[in-house]
């Protein structure tokens, strides 16, 4: 076969691009099946209590009705802890908990069906600070905290708070379940999802079916951002229960309000820092306490907390560290996976705290970070010794130079003091993000990937999903270059559990670095087996060839799950973000007017796709900082619609200057690290630091106009030096 121009590092055309721009791409709501029923979920309207009675006030002819008694297997959404029922039986722990399922061929009839549920309410708890139920406690110890504080010239305390955030993929959650007729009684579920094998396992447990009777097929997915990591297991369960009872295909697609009201969000958190520092800026002790609000069920709280805690001390070296994290239960809908997975919360806190430490020392924010940033050879809070792929200083210096940060910081202040009060500010944040599952997670996952020889080239078989980030394209590039074949000759199979092996979930910035590396090993093996033969020659001579490989942990990684010591991640990405904000003096609305970021993500496989991850993640981070306010009232989201939950529009998103550094990771495919999540870790603290520079002392996001105005009032009260 003709040797191809290299694909890696080039902007090859996205595999499914043409389908997406023509309307041919089929999303779940675009599909239909003969005899299809529509479905509806009846949910709790109270945050805590017991179900006393369920009354269906409608003619039930033609309806399929399912409650917990229809569950053949275990009534749980199988994930980590088995605490969350698929349908509430008696106890209700949050508003919008699913209780009853209805299906009917006619949507109007379905929507008009009146179901009354009577409850015996109990007292709910919405405050994580008084919760008595913990889902997970994490403690990381390094060195001797007392010795660290004894060596300090100054101790700086701070408390930081972050709110919920809604993933807000533009395509809501949805599935279609198609029952198999006859004795086999298997089920096929199509849906919008990130992790087909999570859904597969949850359905086996719920329906008490063997693996080969459950088939899960991802349809084109209109965004995920973590919001389609665990929730599809719930909605797939609901549709499957109805479909099996009705003996007909059932479509369950949420509208926006239901999606926002009922599905998972980013964990709100309260994070306290107490930091010892010497006059020269050296950190001597970091004591960090974090409280994450898990909502009513455990979902992924344990692992969100874990990642959050490992990133809690930021990209800084410090010999004496104690990090304590607790994820607790409240009577609110469960929180779960969202891009960044705990790290945006904790790095918000540490990065705002660093600016406050610098301020106390009379030092600039760049200098304090230069002094303390992790360098190759330094150890993280878990004792991981960093290699050459550590780029904290490189990204910091590149971002500072590119934005002329120090000069602009002085210039902005001068401009501001001539007018009054200061309405512009510029701030930065330095951050990092571990690629792949935490600690021993990848070993436990033991992901597999396959590569099949085709007449034209090769076909990739992985459960990794394309959800916008470019999975199919990026994997095909890696395989094409490893085989030395043209990119166009590499096809990608649908993420269909009936056809592909379990490559693990599409999460944790692992799809390129971890799954991509397994595919690269498949391709290396295929190339060796072919010798010099073309695919067609090989197939004629030897018959079909499918190569499957499993994840192999690099030999230099060690991790102790019990003590939280060792190599938390194979590699980290490193980044610095710089934001300039302007505050409107009439409305107190802060707007980002300039944004720049430098990201080291190792080898860049596809520059446009990678930049798209950075720009999109940064925009979500700016939304997290300024706009995205989940208002919880009596345990339910009061603004569960796009009219009043605001995400960045074109007018809210500044031009972005993105620079990608390529400091390769030895065990990543072609040197790649993860990229998907890191961009969302940095914008929020950079925004708050810019607001601090503008004179607003904020410790909480989202920094809505109300909070900015309050910060201004309290600074007016406490300050007599402000010119008016």
């Amino acid at each position, binding site marked *: 076969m003709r040797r191809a121009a290299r694909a890696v590092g080039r902007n090859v055309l996205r595999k499914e691009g043409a389908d997406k721009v023509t309307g041919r791409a089929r999303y779940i709501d675009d599909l239909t099946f003969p005899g299809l029923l529509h479905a509806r979920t009846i949910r709790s309207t109270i945050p805590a209590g017991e179900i006393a009675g369920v009354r269906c006030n409608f003619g039930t002819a033609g309806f399929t009705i399912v409650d917990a008694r229809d569950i053949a297997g275990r009534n749980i959404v199988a994930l980590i802890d088995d605490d969350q029922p698929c349908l509430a039986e008696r106890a209700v722990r949050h508003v919008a908990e699913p209780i009853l399922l209805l299906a009917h061929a006619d949507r109007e009839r379905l929507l008009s069906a009146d179901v009354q549920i009577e409850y015996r309410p109990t007292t709910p708890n919405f405050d994580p600070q008084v919760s008595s139920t913990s889902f997970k406690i994490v403690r990381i110890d390094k060195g001797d905290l007392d010795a660290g504080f004894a060596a300090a010239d100054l101790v700086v305390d701070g408390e930081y708070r972050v709110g919920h955030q809604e993933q807000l993929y533009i395509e809501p959650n949805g599935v279609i379940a198609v029952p198999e007729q006859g004795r086999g009684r298997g089920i096929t579920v199509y849906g919008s999802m990130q992790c087909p094998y999570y859904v597969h396992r949850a359905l086996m447990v719920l329906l008490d079916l063997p693996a080969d009777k459950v088939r899960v097929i991802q349809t084109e997915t209109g965004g*995920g951002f973590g919001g389609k990591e665990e929730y599809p297991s719930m909605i797939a369960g609901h549709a499957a229960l109805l479909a099996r009872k009705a003996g007909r295909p059932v479509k369950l697609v949420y509208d926006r309000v239901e999606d926002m009201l009922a599905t998972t969000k980013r964990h709100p958190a309260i994070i306290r820092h107490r930091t010892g520092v010497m006059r020269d800026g050296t950190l001597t002790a970091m004591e960090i306490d974090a409280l994450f609000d898990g909502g009513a069920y455990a979902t992924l709280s344990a692992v969100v907390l874990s990642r959050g805690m490992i990133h809690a001390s930021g990209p800084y070296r410090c010999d004496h560290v104690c990090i304590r994290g607790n994820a607790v239960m409240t009577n609110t809908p469960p929180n779960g996976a969202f891009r960044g997975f705990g790290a945006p919360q904790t790095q918000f806190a540490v990065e705002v705290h660093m600016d406050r430490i610098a301020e106390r020392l009379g030092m600039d924010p760049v200098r304090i970070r230069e002094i303390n940033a992790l360098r190759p050879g330094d150890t993280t809070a878990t004792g991981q010794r960093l290699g050459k792929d550590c780029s904290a200083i490189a990204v910091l210096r590149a971002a500072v130079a590119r934005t002329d940060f120090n000069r602009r910081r002085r210039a902005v202040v001068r401009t501001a003091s001539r007018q009054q009060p200061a309405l512009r500010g510029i701030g930065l944040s330095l951050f990092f993000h571990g690629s792949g599952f935490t600690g021993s997670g990848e070993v436990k996952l033991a992901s597999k990937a396959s590569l099949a020889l085709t007449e034209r080239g090769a076909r990739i078989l992985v459960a990794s999903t394309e959800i916008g980030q470019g999975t199919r394209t990026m994997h095909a590039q890696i395989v094409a270059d490893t085989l030395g074949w043209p990119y166009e000759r590499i096809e990608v199979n649908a993420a269909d559990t009936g056809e592909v092996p379990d490559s693990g979930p599409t999460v944790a910035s692992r799809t390129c670095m971890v799954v991509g590396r397994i595919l690269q090993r498949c391709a290396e093996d295929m190339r060796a087996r072919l010798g010099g033969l073309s695919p067609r020659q090989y197939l004629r001579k030897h018959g079909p060839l499918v190569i499957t490989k499993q994840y192999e942990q690099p030999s230099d990684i060690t991790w102790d799950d019990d003590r939280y010591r060792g190599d938390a991640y194979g590699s980290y990405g490193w980044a610095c973000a710089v934001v300039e904000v302007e505050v409107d003096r009439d409305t107190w609305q802060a707007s980002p007017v300039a944004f720049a970021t430098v990201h080291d993500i190792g080898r860049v496989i596809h520059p446009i796709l990678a930049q798209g991850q950075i720009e999109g993640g940064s925009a979500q981070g700016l939304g997290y900082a300024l706009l995205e306010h989940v208002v919880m009232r009596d345990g339910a989201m009061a603004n569960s619609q796009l009219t009043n939950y605001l995400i960045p529009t074109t007018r809210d998103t500044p031009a972005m200057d993105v620079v990608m550094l390529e400091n390769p990771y030895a065990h990543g495919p072609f040197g790649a690290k993860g990229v998907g999540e890191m961009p969302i870790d940095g914008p929020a603290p950079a925004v708050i630091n810019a607001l601090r520079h503008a004179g607003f002392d904020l410790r909480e996001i989202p920094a809505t106009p109300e909070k900015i105005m309050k910060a201004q009032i309290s600074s007016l009260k406490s300050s007599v030096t402000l010119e008016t």
Partner: protein
Amino acid sequence: MYFTLNGKRTRIDAHPMKRLLDVLREECGLTGTKEGCGEGECGACTVLVNGLPVNACLIPLAHAARTRVTTIEGLGGRHPLQRAFVELGGAQCGICTPGMILAAVALGPRPSLDRMRTGLAGNLCRCTGYSAIYKSIRKASGSKAMRKA
């Protein structure tokens, strides 16, 4: 009721208050028009009615009677914007893309950055941060086919 759909005169027998979005998707089988919010905030259902961008979730069929309606299917697949959105990363997950491209068509030739930001403010994209969308539109504007149009 009649309207001109992607250049073809089309007769629809549906309730006049049925949302244009549902008419397109269910009666006409054109599923390229997407529903993101159902309340006119996200723009995923943007179609052109007499050349102007409209949220198809907000208008009933009756309002579309005797108009020219263009959906993503009506662009055929060879429109310079479609090509540019693939090449420059204007499309990621793709769910906002049909509506975004139609809103971009309505911007007219060679839109300024400010015109793009204003004209697309009703089309939410959660993936891109919009920069790649502006680049795609700029590239398409410079293409010969677009200049002719």
